[in-house]
């Protein structure tokens, strides 16, 4: 049996690669991104597993995960990846795919009243950019 990536025809994989400009197949699952991620303990799927799931075109599993919305784009993963894969960029792309399907996670109602008084504007601007269309 011949194994080849050419046989993968998933539209989802194509879309992720096109929107992010990243080659998801460069990832060889070393897990350094997950090891260095400061928010990993709150994620339901580890960052390197997200990349693996993209490789095999498992769209639903990824897009339903909490992980996509927990990435803060701190770029620790990108800085540590031995294969030069920008995992944060891929997370941004996954959010973008969901937002274009109408998902909105701005969740302003979650903000405690007390917090409003001191919360910097910048937190809201980036929240809208990252989580809302």
């Amino acid at each position, binding site marked *: 049996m011949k194994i080849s990536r050419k046989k993968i025809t998933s539209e989802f994989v194509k879309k992720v690669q096109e929107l992010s400009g990243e080659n998801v197949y460069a990832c060889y699952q070393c897990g350094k991104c997950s090891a260095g991620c400061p928010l990993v303990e709150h994620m339901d799927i580890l960052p390197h597993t997200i990349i693996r799931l993209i490789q095999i075109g498992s769209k639903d599993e990824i897009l339903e995960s909490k992980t996509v919305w927990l990435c803060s*784009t701190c770029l620790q993963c990108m800085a540590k990846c031995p294969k030069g894969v920008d995992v944060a960029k891929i997370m941004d792309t996954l959010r973008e795919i969901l937002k274009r399907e109408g998902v909105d996670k701005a969740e302003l109602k979650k903000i405690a009243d007390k917090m409003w008084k001191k919360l910097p504007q910048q937190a809201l601007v980036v*929240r809208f950019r990252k989580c809302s269309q």
Partner: protein
Amino acid sequence: MKKIPYFPGCTLTNKAKGLNETAKLCTKILDIELVELDNWYCCQANFSTVTDNLMNHLGPVRTIVSAKKQGEKLVVLCSTCYYVLKRVNLLIEADESKRKTVFDFLEEEYKGSLEVVHFLELVRDEIGFDKLKEKVTLNLKNISVAAYYGCQLLRPSKDVGIDDPFSPTIFERFLISLGCKSIDYPFKTECCGSFLVTSETQAVQDCVSKIIRYAVKNGADTITTSCPLCNFNLDWSQLALAKEDKKFKKIPIFYLTELMALALGIDIPNEVWDEHVIDPRAFLETKGYILATKK
């Protein structure tokens, strides 16, 4: 006095007036007048990495166009604004086709790239740490400060890095010039949780807990930042940490320019301290740097 345009951004004119005002007062003592850029736009607080959406870059590009009309250099105080403006500037410089699309839309002419510099770079390269040291009138030797870099001053290092991405020292050298004792600790370049603070408070609290506990363990009495969001996260999350753990001791979080202003003998108005979640006045009084009567 040399005039250099600077970019305030949304937060510096609202919730982080302290950072804005103290920075301007400090540079004046060092013969540089930071002049607010005419006609600036929101930086978007986010560098959009999706390849097909140029709209998100328009705000920063408009700012870059304004800055280019007023000089070759733009100083930025907030780490997020610095990160976004610098990356958009580089993108526009490097990608001819995107540049053409954006400038055709804006009906503007591209006049070459701009030098986007962070405040710390301005102090290091334009003023010099030696000159800063000479101007110090109040030596802050009683304060042990942990510099917090966060993400956006360092990563991606080839684009925005103001220093070595894994072991930066620019912030520490700045603090040492002010006379402070600088504390090294393992989490100075880790994420504070960023915008997640409004929805995932527990996750942000966990990030902040590691940063503060390691800094304090290594001897810090305070942490200093250059980003209003990092500052808020480190400041705000301590309320919950103190509630959960009775032994947790809250520490004040300063903007880099607040410590700088203290060292340069500037009289800091109470409005600046009022912006903080954990009031730093009590701390400064015990260290003997402000008078108890000022409160």
